[in-house]
């Protein structure tokens, strides 16, 4: 490995630009003569729209147009579909509603778009939106998935007759039941996996501009790769050729899985821009971001696991409810079944597995992909079960895991996915050693002598990386000035592609990272088969695409070099940026420059070193790891402080350890956020009551523990770079490691589980027992200063 190549901790090339405020975000874009859009949103969780009066809004200063569903319907703009297909065991397909772009006759959650105002300024658009008069007739609402199942619960879709659109099961439970009956030990775990807000720092924003002369619409918007949104908007909603739609994503302030979707706001805005024949800009405010960006998690899991007398799992049954929200987002019901299903039952061999999932409609914003997308939920459930198994069998927590780890690879999971590689026991051993697990009891005793309760938790987890789409399109071009340009289908919105992809080019072509330029996020320029970045896929998909493209460049370069050095191609070698033939040599740059000159290349050859590769993956990869968390509880307040955190990850070959560490820190922060302070909360009336950073507990840097990171590298066998994704692992490991530690600290108080977020009040009540009449609130963590 060279100075800048694979495995080097190259510092992020993009940081000076971003940290000095020279990033370019959607809101930085403006078009001459643009209008501004503002959405009127539903203040009700559930209500009929009896009448709409737009007169005052249309007459307000600066207003160009006011649109409702009637306008979209008149132009034949279709509603939004969910892309997931599911069926029950009898083969009956899942019932799917469509979501109107702007609410038609009824609203089903607080924040649903009802009307779009287009005006000369943002202030005018917002003022006018408030002048729209709507005669509402509120309906009863339900926000909680378990409540929505009860008889008499308000129905989101009366035509369905219930709030459950399908009861999906992997198979009948017969075999699992039989195995469970014969189990020596049975453990039960019931979990509410709390709803989270993705909360990117950059709100949704858009600038939609219609060019009448070209008949072309350009949308600037923060996405995770705009190709799919381009296709959706062009073909489904605007009914124009895909190439007449251009989506540009400049810098993006956080993706987390919530940027890939074609949000209704974008549909309304591009349609409005085409209607008025001009440009419409929009930027969500923070409140809109909180209640209209798709949320994450929100599952209820009930599970039973049976073990034999040796502590080996014989059967596992899981019943999951997933709160879909009012509509089905693009990926909504996919979260537990395919998102989590790709790995469930996680690191363990389970001979008989029964899995039942009921998606549930409620009067809330839709849930969809959010960092981990079903895998954090699955891992959390499995790790709570393993801790319960340790408690029941009397085995230590590491021993019960060790006895059940998958050890033979490739391993086909009960859901049919094939895990290529891993060494789970070694990862756990490393993590426990780094965390000084063996001497923990001394630290517990020392803390106790000071009046504090200490606990330690271990969580093994597995991830599935690569995303659903099996291809990615990358192109690498050697320029005349010796630089190299990557035209990337992968899309960086914080991941550091500029850095890592430059390292790959350095590795394969010998060009210095400073001379590599990354072009991304523009559907007019990026490769036609570009997909984007989600599901921790870019190291494998984009990385392999670059490797293959570079190999093609070198293969062609060899021919050019042979021609110039008057040698046979077979006699030319290439290594570390130099072509050699006998005593002659030419640098990659020299050959690349010559290659553009038609007079210096072999006859019939197309000039230039410019090669693309549409990489088709063989399989997803399976990052995994083990985290150990140690907490200390102040029993008087219930405040838990993380005193030690160790993360050992197997993310395959490490392309840049600095970048991977960053991914681990970020993922752990989001995982600890979920475990300790984050809670997206709807009240009994369906109002979203945690819609500001004053109420929603975002994890902050100064509250994060120091995270010790280790690598347990087992190269992936199914992709050319041997990489496994790194983006979502932290969010999988942190919640069970923290809750496991907390439960361990509270073991003398009979605590076996605590739902997230584990607030000080919950912890305090666990210590002080059931001496109170009321339940704890859904509260938020606090700290003493």
């Amino acid at each position, binding site marked *: 490995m060279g100075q800048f190549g694979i495995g080097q901790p190259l510092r992020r090339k993009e940081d000076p630009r971003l940290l000095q405020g020279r990033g370019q975000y959607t809101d930085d874009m403006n078009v001459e003569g643009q209008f501004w859009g503002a959405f009127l949103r539903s203040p009700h969780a559930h209500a009929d729209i009896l009448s709409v009066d737009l007169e005052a809004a249309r007459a307000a200063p600066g207003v160009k147009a006011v649109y409702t569903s009637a306008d979209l319907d008149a132009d034949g703009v279709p509603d939004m579909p969910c892309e997931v297909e599911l069926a029950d065991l009898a083969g009956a397909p899942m019932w799917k509603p469509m979501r109107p772009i702007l609410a038609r006759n009824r609203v089903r959650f607080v924040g649903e778009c009802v009307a779009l105002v287009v005006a000369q300024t943002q202030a005018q658009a917002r003022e006018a939106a408030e002048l729209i008069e709507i005669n509402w007739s509120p309906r009863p609402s339900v926000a909680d998935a378990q409540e929505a199942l009860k008889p008499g619960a308000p129905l989101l879709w009366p035509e369905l007759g219930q709030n459950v659109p399908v009861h999906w099961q992997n198979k009948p439970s017969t075999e699992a039941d039989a195995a469970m009956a014969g189990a020596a030990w049975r453990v039960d775990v019931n979990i509410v996996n709390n709803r989270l807000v993705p909360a990117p720092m950059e709100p949704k924003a858009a600038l939609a501009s219609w060019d009448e002369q070209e008949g072309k619409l350009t949308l600037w918007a923060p996405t995770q790769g705009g190709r799919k949104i381009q296709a959706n908007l062009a073909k489904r909603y605007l009914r124009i050729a895909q190439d007449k739609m251009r989506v540009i994503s400049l810098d993006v302030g956080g993706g987390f899985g919530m940027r890939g979707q074609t949000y209704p706001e974008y549909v309304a805005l591009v349609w409005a821009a085409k209607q008025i024949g001009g440009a419409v800009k929009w930027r969500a405010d923070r409140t809109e971001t909180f209640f209209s960006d798709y949320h994450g998690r929100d599952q209820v899991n009930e599970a039973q696991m049976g073990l034999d007398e040796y502590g080996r799992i014989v059967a596992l049954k899981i019943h999951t409810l997933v709160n879909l929200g009012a509509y089905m987002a693009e990926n909504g019901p996919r979260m537990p079944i395919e998102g989590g299903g790709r790995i469930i039952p996680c690191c363990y061999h389970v001979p008989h597995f029964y899995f039942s999932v009921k998606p549930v409609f409620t009067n809330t914003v839709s849930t969809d992909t959010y960092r981990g997308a079903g895998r954090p939920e699955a891992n959390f459930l499995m790790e709570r079960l393993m801790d319960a198994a340790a408690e029941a069998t009397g085995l230590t927590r590491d021993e019960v895991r060790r006895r059940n780890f998958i050890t033979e690879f490739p391993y086909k999971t009960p859901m049919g996915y094939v895990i290529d590689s891993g060494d789970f026991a070694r990862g756990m051993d490393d993590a426990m050693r780094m965390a000084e697990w063996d001497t923990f009891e001394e630290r517990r005793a020392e803390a106790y002598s000071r009046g504090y309760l200490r606990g330690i938790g271990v969580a093994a987890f597995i991830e599935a990386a690569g995303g659903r789409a099996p291809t990615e399109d990358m192109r690498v071009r050697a320029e005349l000035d010796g630089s190299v340009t990557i035209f990337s289908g992968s899309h960086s919105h914080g991941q550091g592609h500029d850095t890592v992809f430059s390292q790959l080019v350095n590795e394969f072509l010998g060009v210095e990272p400073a001379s590599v330029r990354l072009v991304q996020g523009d559907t007019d320029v990026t490769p036609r088969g570009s997909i984007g970045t989600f599901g921790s896929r870019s190291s494998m998909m984009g990385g392999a695409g670059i490797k293959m493209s570079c190999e093609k460049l070198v293969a062609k370069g060899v021919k050019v070099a042979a021609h110039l050095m008057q040698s046979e191609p077979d006699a030319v070698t290439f290594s570390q940026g130099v072509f050699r033939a006998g005593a002659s040599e030419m640098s990659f740059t020299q050959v690349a420059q010559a290659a553009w000159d038609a007079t210096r290349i072999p006859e019939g050859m197309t000039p230039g070193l410019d090669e693309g590769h549409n990489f088709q993956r063989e399989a997803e990869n399976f990052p995994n790891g083990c985290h150990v968390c140690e907490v200390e509880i102040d029993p008087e307040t219930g405040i838990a402080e993380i005193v030690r955190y160790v993360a050992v990850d197997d993310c395959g070959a490490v392309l840049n350890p600095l970048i991977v560490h960053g991914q681990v820190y970020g993922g752990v922060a989001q995982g600890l956020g979920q475990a300790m*302070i984050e809670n997206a909360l709807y009240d009994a009336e369906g109002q979203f009551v945690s819609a500001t950073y004053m109420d929603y*507990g975002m994890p902050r840097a100064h509250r994060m523990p120091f995270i010790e990171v280790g690598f347990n590298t087992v190269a992936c066998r199914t992709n050319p770079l041997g990489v496994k994704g790194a983006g979502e692992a932290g969010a999988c490991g942190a919640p069970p490691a923290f809750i496991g530690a907390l439960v361990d600290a509270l073991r003398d108080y009979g605590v076996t589980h605590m739902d997230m977020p584990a607030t000080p*009040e919950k912890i305090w009540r666990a210590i002080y027992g059931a001496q109170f009449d009321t339940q704890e609130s859904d509260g*938020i963590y*606090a700290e*003493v*200063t």
Partner: protein
Amino acid sequence: MHNFDYHAPKTLDSALALLRDKEDGKIIAGGMTLLPTLKQRLAAPSDLIDLAALSEMKGVRRDGNGIVIGAMTTHAEVAANGDVQSLIPALSHLAGVIGDPAVRHRGTIGGSVANADPAADYPAAVVGLNATIVTNKRKIAADDFFVSLFETALERDEIITSVRFPIPERAGYEKFRHPASGYAVVGVMVAKFGDKVRVGVTGAAGSAFRASDFEAALEKNFSSEVLLGIAVSPDDLLSDIHCTNEYRAHLVNVMARRAIAAA
């Protein structure tokens, strides 16, 4: 934000004149609560009267056995002031744990006290340290100032010009901090003036209050142990999405004991 007219008067008199003249005028004294409210379009005052230019209302000075803090003095200035640090370190500590650095450099003591947010820190200091609220019209005793949620004894055309804190023998402030907002879920200021003790509690109820049971016990014996047996009734305390009144009642006792330890 709705439209409003902005005024930055140079003198207190012109600020008062504007306040009397404008139909729906609103004073801004830092704006740490008002600005977010405006941005969320939850308030629509006709006029904003900004006190930022009133230099006479800024700064900290000694005044006999007290410290007088101008109403437009920022939290950061109070926290960093040498006199406050040496004479009432608990007050300096309190000002230094309000919100976050941005809030501490914009928010002012007058703005915070006049706003009377039930979870703000300063009300605990006003009540616990027996401060006097000085306005353009009169002096208001701490015990008479906070009326209820966001409501004070201030009249419509009354502006706080300064807050006077007597110097205690000992004082301590301890706060259970909300991680999102930085507000006090419960904050307790305990202060000893000779044989008198005052305990000011913020965050727990609709407005700051004195824990008189604690005061009586501490006047006999100023030590945290005496509070161990004194339960706080949750009856009039707040329950909300952040925590219940029972937990708040418990925290009042814990924070009071820790404030004594810090005093």
